[in-house]
């Protein structure tokens, strides 16, 4: 191919030259070039390698349909893999690497694979690499497969995201989309006009047209000015790639300056699809050689970037659009031969024309240098432009569950039944002439004011691949699917179009078969004696074009991916050198020392003197009103209405299937006011659950529920010196045990700050939970911290608390219980026997599953070997049968702080009746031995609660 830049014409700016590199070689171009047009003008032919056979490939298209040429693009620090060179604007200083080639596209080392192509048809991998094991071959095959390369060290810049509402979204700013946008905006609608090209105009940028008596370019300029005046939002370089529920259209906008792409989420009242149509290749042997290009793409390169794609050009078409291309190439100085498959094609003056003929095969190895016609005529050429007809871009219509209808005169699937809120116009509706498309606009939009164009005609004759053709006919360029592969699929009974796709990978690559799908299913139709509509199309799914993850992610990266909730005391914890970690969505102190060794030291300190613990994330949901007690009786597994004001009670909340959903302490502040404290990670869930049952079963105005978790900070003081610390911190409250016993709550204050003091314990030691308005927490913390330090104590992190609670056998729901655990399995069976009132999950407790005698029950485990801590997740074994059987697993394990030696909790089959028994455990190939004990390993009588 001897493509060359013409000295004048086109939309490029010859006063602004630019340079970039491709596979290490400098390419020169001008502002207004795409990467593809600059590469084409440079005379390079082999710009990439095919996916499977590693065949040399050149450009086929000039837009999003491009199947062949992608490149990894580096621009400064930014790296974008696998970019279609046809849609990317050329910029000074870009560094391009042809995708998946080594050392470069021209000399790729794997090119020899094509010699073996007859041995590696579709399904080859599945058939060949089965024995002895696919995994032996997988690494090498994976290394060779794939398109493009990801550099894990580089991340793209963060993309913007825009949410937008409008009356009408017009997709495609070709002549018909522009006309529609003008009509809609003229009728007072807010309009967004999106187009995937570098600038609006569509085919007007490279095809001749006369609209309203003016040349196409003049009408375009005039219309754009009018649209600006009407306030139409025009989004160039923007691809509408998906239609989602409730009319949400997602669009990806690329930017000229290399900024990260912008994601637009547009919710229009009305979608007008004017996305045009994509030209198909023609099926003949060796139709994938470099130099063979879509005729419309060739015309676009000639008229837009002034690149004449060859000196000696053959144009092969089965439709009437070949003539304009032939005339344009001839006028630009090329020698042109037109091969028109239509027998009645009108000869063109000055152009050699073979009417009623088609191409049998192309000649050449790394570039096309001639063609052989079906009558044996040989014609030499350095460029072959092909047109096999047009496939309407109706992806969004199909995504909206529109049904496609086959049109035998246009040889295309067109929109069938109307889809509410979506109108298809222009080439996407199969209206391939401007006259026809404009004439249909008033009825389609229900508006007047459509432009007019001189009548013209479009006609086409079939040129489908035929079964049994000799030679290698490419159906899908990017994934190297040939006619023989489709025939193989048919022979092996992969007849459904969905099976055909998956067996041959036809239409699966990054171009999603935009140029190939129809030829593939037309061949399948012929092979199986069916009509094309009987074969049908595969399901259209978003995205229409590849969308960068940076665009989809937007700002939701790093810590914004899943923002943590922050404690009011975070600053205090940081000042104390706390290591912080995420627990149940909250960023909490893990420990306060240099390393993990601090954890056990903190736990031992709390047992010896006193520990200070930030328990603020603990759920605190207030339930208020005259029916609150009755309501909570229904919510809790336990009876709570008998609780006295000022009292606390530990209880379970079950799900309706009687699985333990949460545990916690219920506090009764007064007759009509309760605080439900629940696990930190369950606060939102319990709140929603309370609301659900309140609204479902109770008089709405007699119960009020308020989630006070976020507004309340809670500091737990625990240990033998807890009461002394509270006194020393200057807190005013009656701390006498007779007036303020365990499991009660009392008001108090610290200076002017009112507090709620609650005596509950998650550690087994005397503990006070001090709750305060969260903004007042730092002052309280400072006072307590100072007092604790003088008594030999200090702050402890959550991991120390986990040790303290585990050796006491206190459970964490979801850790020491699972999705099967009933309350009886945790040793709480009283309410099932004695509670009269209805409660959540009550009936489910009678189910066979809940009553099974061999249920997994909470136990403690003491290692009986010298292996140290038991691993969490280790399975207990029943070795009495033929094969070992799991009888449950370890749920928590840690060194003891008060207890001497390791402690563990487990859910073990019939565990409650097996205390004292020694069982074997299995974990990652290792065996351990442990004795089943009661869950509580430390201070089983609970003396320390009041010590």
């Amino acid at each position, binding site marked *: 191919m001897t493509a060359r830049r013409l000295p004048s014409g086109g939309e490029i700016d010859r006063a602004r030259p630019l340079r970039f590199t491709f596979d290490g070689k400098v390419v020169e171009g001008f502002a207004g070039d795409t990467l593809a047009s600059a590469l084409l003008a440079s005379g390079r032919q082999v710009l990439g390698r095919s996916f499977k056979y590693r065949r040399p490939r050149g450009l086929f298209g000039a837009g999003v349909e491009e199947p062949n040429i992608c490149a990894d693009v580096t621009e400064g620090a930014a790296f974008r893999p696998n970019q279609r060179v046809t849609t990317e604007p050329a910029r000074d200083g870009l560094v391009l690497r042809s995708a998946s080639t080594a050392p470069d596209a021209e000399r790729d080392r794997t090119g020899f694979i094509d010699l073996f192509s007859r041995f590696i048809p579709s399904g080859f991998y599945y058939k060949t690499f089965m024995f002895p094991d696919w995994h032996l071959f997988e690494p090498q095959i994976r290394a060779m497969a794939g398109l493009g390369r990801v550099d894990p060290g580089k991340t793209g810049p963060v993309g913007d995201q825009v949410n937008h509402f409008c009356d009408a979204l017009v997709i495609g700013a070709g002549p018909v989309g522009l006309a529609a946008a003008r009509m809609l905006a003229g009728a007072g609608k807010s309009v967004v006009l999106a187009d995937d090209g570098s600038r609006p105009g569509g085919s007007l940028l490279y095809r001749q047209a006369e609209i309203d008596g003016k040349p196409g370019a003049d009408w375009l300029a005039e219309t754009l000015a009018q649209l600006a005046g009407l306030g139409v939002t025009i989004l160039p370089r923007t691809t509408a790639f998906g239609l989602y529920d*409730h009319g949400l259209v997602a669009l990806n906008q690329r930017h000229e300056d290399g900024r990260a792409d912008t994601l637009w989420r547009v*919710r229009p009242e009305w979608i007008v699809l004017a996305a045009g149509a994509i030209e198909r290749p023609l099926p003949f042997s060796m139709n994938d050689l470099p130099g063979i290009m879509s005729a419309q793409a060739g015309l676009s390169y000639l008229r837009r970037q002034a690149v004449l794609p060859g000196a000696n050009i053959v144009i092969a078409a089965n439709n009437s659009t070949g003539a304009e291309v032939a005339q344009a190439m001839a006028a630009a100085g090329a020698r042109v031969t037109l091969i028109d498959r239509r027998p009645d094609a009108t000869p063109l003056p000055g152009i050699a024309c073979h009417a009623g003929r088609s191409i049998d095969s192309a000649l050449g190895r790394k570039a096309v240098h001639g063609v052989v016609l079906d009558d044996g005529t040989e014609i030499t050429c350095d460029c072959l432009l092909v047109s096999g007809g047009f496939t309407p871009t109706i992806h969004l219509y199909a995504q909206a569950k529109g049904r496609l209808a086959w049109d035998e005169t246009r040889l295309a699937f067109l929109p069938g039944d109307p889809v509410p809120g979506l109108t298809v116009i222009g080439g996407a509706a199969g209206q391939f002439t401007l006259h026809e498309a404009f004439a249909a606009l008033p009825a389609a939009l229900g508006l007047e004011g459509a432009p007019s164009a001189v009548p013209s005609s479009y006609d086409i004759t079939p040129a489908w691949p035929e079964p049994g053709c000799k030679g290698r006919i490419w159906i899908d360029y990017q994934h190297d699917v040939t006619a023989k592969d489709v025939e193989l699929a048919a022979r092996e009974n992969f007849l459904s179009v969905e099976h055909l796709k998956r067996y041959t990978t036809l239409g699966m690559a990054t171009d999603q078969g935009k140029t190939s799908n129809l030829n593939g299913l037309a061949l399948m139709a012929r092979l199986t004696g069916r009509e094309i509509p009987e074969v049908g199309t595969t399901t259209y799914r978003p995205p229409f074009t590849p969308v960068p993850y940076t665009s989809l992610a937007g700002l939701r990266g790093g810590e914004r991916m899943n923002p943590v909730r922050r404690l009011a005391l975070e600053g205090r914890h940081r000042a104390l050198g706390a290591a912080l970690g995420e627990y149940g969505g909250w960023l909490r102190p893990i420990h306060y020392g240099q390393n993990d060794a601090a954890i056990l030291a903190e736990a031992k300190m709390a047992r010896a003197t006193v520990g200070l613990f930030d328990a603020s994330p603990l759920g605190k949901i207030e339930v208020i009103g005259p029916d609150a007690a009755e309501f909570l009786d229904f919510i809790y597994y336990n009876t709570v209405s008998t609780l006295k004001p000022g009292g606390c009670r530990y209880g379970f909340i079950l799900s309706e299937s009687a699985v333990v959903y949460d545990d916690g302490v219920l506090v009764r502040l007064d007759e009509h006011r309760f605080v439900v404290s629940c696990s930190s990670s369950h606060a*939102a869930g319990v709140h929603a659950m309370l*609301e659900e049952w309140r*609204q479902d079963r109770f008089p*709405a105005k007699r119960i009020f*529920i308020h989630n006070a978790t976020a507004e309340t900070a809670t500091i737990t003081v625990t240990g033998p010196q807890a009461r002394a610390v509270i006194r020393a911190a200057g807190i005013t409250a009656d701390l006498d045990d007779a007036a303020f016993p365990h499991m009660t709550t009392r008001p108090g204050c610290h200076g002017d700050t009112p507090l709620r003091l609650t005596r509950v314990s998650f550690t087994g030691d005397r503990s006070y939970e001090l709750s305060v308005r969260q903004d007042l927490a730092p002052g309280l913390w400072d006072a307590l911290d100072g007092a604790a330090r003088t008594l030999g104590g200090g702050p402890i992190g959550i991991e120390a608390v986990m040790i303290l609670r585990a050796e006491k056998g206190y459970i964490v729901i979801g850790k020491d219980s699972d999705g099967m655990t009933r309350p009886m399995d945790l040793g709480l069976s009283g309410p099932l026997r004695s509670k009269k009132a209805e409660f959540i999950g009550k*009936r*489910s407790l*009678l189910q066979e599953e809940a009553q099974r005698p061999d249920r997994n029950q909470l136990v403690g485990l003491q290692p009986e070997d010298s292996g140290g801590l038991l691993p969490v997740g280790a399975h207990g074994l029943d070795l009495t049968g033929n094969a070992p059987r799991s009888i449950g697993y370890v749920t928590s394990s840690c060194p003891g702080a008060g207890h001497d030696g390791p402690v563990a909790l487990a859910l073990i089959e019939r565990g409650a009746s097996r205390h004292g028994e020694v069982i074997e455990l299995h974990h990652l190939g290792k065996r351990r031995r442990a004795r089943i004990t009661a869950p509580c390993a430390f201070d089983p009588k609970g003396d320390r609660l009041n010590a």
Partner: protein
Amino acid sequence: MQIFSCPFCGSRPEYEFHFGGDLGNHRPEGFEAVPDREWADYLYFRNNPKGTAREVWMHLTCGEMFSMTRDTVTMAAAPGETLTEGQP
């Protein structure tokens, strides 16, 4: 993304809502008196219609439950309706 309409707050994105089950899935009362089959039906068996579904949803941001009619084929969602009479 779907847009649902809370009868109290208006149109909001779907992630503000929580599914509450089939409308009219009444809880059988009476503990032992409830047959296994009836209880299992309440717990596990869903209407799962093709087409019009009548459902309960909660708008998490305001905490109110309401009923909504949805089409499970077209995904069309009618505006939510209050479950309590005499309230806005």
